[in-house]
């Protein structure tokens, strides 16, 4: 049962030391009650208070941070089953698998790819998140070599996968200070894994095929002192994954089974169609997805799907209003006006680029609304366009006075002409037709 803020406050030290990041113990208590803070942030809680507060006050799914430094990332701390109920907060880390049977060059190449490769979409840089080093050889020697090769290439979040405690111990002597994630604790080996994890403040993947066993294992690991856990429900099929992952999410966010309140780990590499497992993991609650080094097509689709699903549905992505150049437009280049909904901007920009005609794009502030909705809501109007032309100095950039407006804003054409004194040309409704339109119609 969730506790009220005042009940929680009674258990806090009431020192108002601010070490948790909050100004007073009472505000911290309010955050705890709302599930927005973690008990562990308070350094002065005694174990009794901690166990009382424990799982009832932390976010329904614990925030776990993987890696250290610039490329570290947080997972978990999710609150909903559907993104439209609020939003999904922490996109899953996509981490490339490396085997210690690969050559040093191969290992360094994959690591460098994760370090460097960037896909830029709608103004955002998308990257892979880390590497997963597997002790395929079973030997300590090969494993330490592989870990050393990764270490000398990049400071990325790492997951160390081995059944051999000696191999993990040796690897941790190389990278233990970066708090890697260990994989995997099972009901058989969890004491040993917990001891290692505790010694190096590691995150720990725990694995069991039934939710009962998984919840019990989580409880056992917490009592061994390891709290940064990831759950691997050991799916053998896509059906296993969607069922177990959905159940974990639902039981965690409703706090029906607080012991399942940890982020979910998915190794996509074991499935017959890895891309299917990746896509499923992205939409259905995986927080870490282990993949092989992906082909260009698979990588683009995965990164794009992840960006889509983790876009906050409450706020449309917006562009800054302004005058943007496509290519190097001259004084006689066309000026195309459109709204600042980023999807509209990037779609239109893409088609203008393919038309190979240098243009100016005049982006007006419709607060992120699309053309259709902003026309309907009256947000897109002649005053807005007139002011934008002035504000962004369009008159100094071109020698003509012609403005191309989106097809769906055709009803405004007369009023825009009157307000601006510019000749208004109504462009196509579909951005895909802009190339043909410009080639056929545009004369300065």
């Amino acid at each position: 049962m969730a506790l009220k803020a005042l009940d929680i406050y009674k258990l806090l030290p009431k020192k108002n030391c601010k070490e948790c990041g909050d100004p007073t113990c009472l505000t911290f208590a309010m955050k705890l009650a709302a599930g927005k803070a973690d008990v562990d942030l308070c350094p002065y809680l005694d174990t009794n208070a901690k166990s009382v507060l424990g799982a009832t006050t932390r976010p329904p799914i614990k925030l776990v941070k993987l890696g250290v430094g610039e490329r570290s990332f947080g997972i978990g701390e999710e609150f909903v089953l559907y993104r439209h109920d609020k939003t999904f907060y922490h996109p899953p880390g996509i981490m490339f698998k490396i085997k210690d049977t690969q050559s040093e060059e191969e290992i360094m190449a994959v690591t460098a790819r994760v370090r460097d490769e960037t896909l830029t979409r709608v103004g955002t840089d998308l990257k892979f998140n880390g590497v997963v080093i597997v002790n395929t050889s079973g030997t300590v020697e090969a494993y330490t070599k592989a870990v050393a090769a990764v270490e000398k290439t990049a400071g990325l979040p790492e997951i160390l996968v081995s059944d051999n405690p000696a191999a993990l111990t040796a690897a941790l002597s190389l990278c233990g200070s970066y708090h890697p994630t260990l994989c995997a604790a099972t009901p058989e080996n969890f004491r040993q894994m917990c001891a290692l994890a505790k010694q190096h403040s590691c995150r720990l993947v725990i694995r069991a095929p039934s939710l009962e066993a998984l919840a019990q294992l989580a409880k056992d690991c917490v009592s061994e002192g390891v709290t940064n856990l990831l759950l691997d429900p050991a799916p053998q099929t896509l059906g296993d994954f969607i069922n177990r992952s959905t159940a974990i999410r639902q039981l965690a966010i409703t706090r029906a089974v607080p012991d399942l309140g940890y982020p979910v780990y998915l190794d996509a590499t074991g499935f017959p169609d890895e891309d299917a497992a990746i896509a499923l993991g992205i939409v259905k609650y995986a927080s870490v997805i282990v993949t092989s080094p992906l082909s260009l097509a698979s990588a683009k689709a995965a990164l794009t799907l992840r960006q889509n699903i983790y876009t906050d549905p409450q706020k449309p992505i917006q562009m800054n209003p302004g005058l943007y150049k496509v290519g190097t437009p001259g004084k006689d280049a066309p000026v195309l006006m459109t709204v600042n909904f980023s999807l509209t901007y990037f779609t239109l920009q893409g088609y203008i680029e393919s038309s190979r005609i240098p243009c100016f794009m005049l982006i007006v502030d419709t607060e992120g609304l699309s053309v259709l909705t902003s026309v309907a809501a009256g947000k897109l109007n002649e005053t807005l366009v007139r002011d934008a032309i002035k504000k962004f100095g369009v008159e100094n950039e071109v020698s003509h006075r012609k403005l191309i407006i989106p097809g769906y804003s055709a009803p405004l054409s007369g009023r825009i002409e009157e307000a601006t004194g510019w000749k208004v040309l109504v462009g196509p409704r579909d951005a895909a037709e802009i190339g043909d339109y410009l080639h056929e119609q545009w004369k300065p």
Partner: protein
Amino acid sequence: MIPDANFGWTSPVGEVVLGATEKEGGTRSRSYQIGGGTTLPFIEKEPKSPSPLIAFEICDDPQYWSPIINDFCGDLVRDPGAWAKTAENTYGADLVRLCLTSTKQRDFSNITTIGKTVETVLSSTTLPLIIEGSNEPKIDSEVFLKCGETGQGERLLLGTAEAGRYRSIAAAALAYNHSIIAQSPIDINLAKQLNILLKEIGVQKDHIVIDPFTGALGYGFEYSYSAMERIRFSALKGDADLAMPMICAPADSLTIKEVREADAKTRDAMAVEWEFATSLAAAVAGSEIVCVRHPGTVKRLKAAFAALKNRTGA
């Protein structure tokens, strides 16, 4: 003991029949009953509802089709009959969706040819058909009536009705007992409104498939994904005006920059990957039919849907 995850659903999704076998008054080798889901897709205790169906899209005028597909499929694109047959026998599709792109030609009026094309496709494949009709409101009535008449008894799925443009297609569906696709622009309220309009002119709810409109991956797909989830959610919560199966047709997948501008070596892979990721996510959100244009996508989706239906242990 772990309790079952409780979602509080009260009603199943409605059902729609596609295609008719000889026994059912048609000539198809099979018919499908879609819908009927009682919870979120793929998590029923005893999977009763079938796997999502994969519709392969063909057209009758390839000048309006993606050059990627025209190159990949070769001469087939100029022979809708042979193309439909290949979709069934080689690609492994569950449905064929014939898009009458010839109606995009300026001042198109050749309705007789439309009837012939539909006839050819019906006789070339034994699969149930979706027919995507006119692109021009002026000829809607003639085109849909011709399609409806030619496919009489076959329980076609006719597309696409929109608010403000649904009467002709509904008339053809009602006259010849076909079902229709009702499309709204990524908005659950508009989807509901259109279903009510259709109900008012006599289209039964078991003859409607909702198309919430699918934006391409990377170009608004997230809105479509959530619209689908919300429609499924409403259906399960008992909203009868949204309790119809859904169709996902990401037609723009092949025209977006990532696919269009991919180099010759990777563009087929890119096209397949884009269709695959979109369709898989849409099926998980609740689409009972997914439409694709690249032959390479069909079998991969089929295997993935089978794997999603497959569960080991509890």
